[in-house]
């Protein structure tokens, strides 16, 4: 893309517009200035004189007044609809699934092995139950808590999601660390790791506008 540099008058005018847009939120401010910059470039490329272009666009104060009126009708970011399915949410689904898998694996492990010795001295082992039926209460509680913890962020939307996600990640790490002594902790480590990853992933706001290309010099 061709590098485009605006004439000094246009740069001064755009800076004045940017300064005048004090009552406008930064994303909208950037959008307005970008739009005006692109407009000026287009007009100049078509052969219009820079003075004429700026005269037609009006004064920075007029633009700021219009922008302030539009700002009143802009949906606050906190109220803007947010997507449910995000990368973080997918990781959290995986964490919850891993917690359920870990609980299932532990529950289905052989729970009671009966050894019988016959008259020839041969030992025969017979599994009579799975671990689910004679599981230690602490182990069962750990698994239930892990599943519930990983499920909580999936039920939260909006502004509360981030603090809940961070809290769940911390609690999962603590739970896994405390229960490694009973072995069960190692089973929930994968779910805890995914919870931490989900909490560390940056929140990508729904991109409605593209950032300015490098070829547009200020």
């Amino acid at each position, binding site marked *: *893309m*061709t590098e*485009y540099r605006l004439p000094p008058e246009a740069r001064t005018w755009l800076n004045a517009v940017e300064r005048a847009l004090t009552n*406008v*939120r930064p*994303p*909208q401010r950037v*959008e*307005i200035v*970008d*739009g*005006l910059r*692109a*407009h000026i*470039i*287009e*007009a100049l*490329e078509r052969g219009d004189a820079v003075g004429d272009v700026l005269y*037609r*666009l*009006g004064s920075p104060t*007029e*633009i700021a007044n*219009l*922008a302030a*009126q*539009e*700002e009143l*009708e*802009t*949906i606050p970011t906190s109220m*803007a*609809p947010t997507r449910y399915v995000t990368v973080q949410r997918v990781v959290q689904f995986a964490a919850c699934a891993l917690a359920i898998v870990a609980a299932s694996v532990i529950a289905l492990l052989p729970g009671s092995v009966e050894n019988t010795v016959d008259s020839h001295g041969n030992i025969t082992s017979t599994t009579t139950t799975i671990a689910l039926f004679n599981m230690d209460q602490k182990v069962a509680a750990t698994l239930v808590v892990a599943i519930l913890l990983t499920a909580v962020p999936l039920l939260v939307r909006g502004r509360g999601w981030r603090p809940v996600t961070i809290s769940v990640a911390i609690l999962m790490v603590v739970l896994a660390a405390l229960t490694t002594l009973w072995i069960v902790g190692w089973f929930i480590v994968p779910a805890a790791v995914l919870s931490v990853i989900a909490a560390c992933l940056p929140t990508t706001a*729904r991109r*409605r*506008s*593209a*950032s*300015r*290309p490098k*070829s*547009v010099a200020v």
Partner: protein
Amino acid sequence: MVTGRFAVLGVPKGHCQYIALRYTLHYMVTAERVLTSLRKGLVEFCVLAILKEGSTYGFEMARRLEADGLIAGESTLYPLLARLLANGLAESEWSESEAGRPRKYYTLTAEGREALDIFEQSWVPLRNAVDRTLRRPS
């Protein structure tokens, strides 16, 4: 102040306020003000209607809207576009023009299309109602 002046003439206070209001309204009703007021709610849907035809860039839109008398000045468009983007009714993307210069293209979103549909459904009955009222013999 106006109220006070009338009050001196012995007109009751409530009447003074009414007269002041009438005076103000009469002063306000000019062609320019009527147009500004009418455009305010309509331009955003005209922009959405233009975007419904396909992606376009700000300069082209501004020229078109100004030629049709829908905006008072070219710069009016950009604060409006910023709001449409923030409210999720349109999207923008930088792209290269045929001449190799960067252009910011605006596109209608599904929410924008929905908003335009709602406007179109409301606009025709409203326009007809206004036309009927204006044509009604006094």
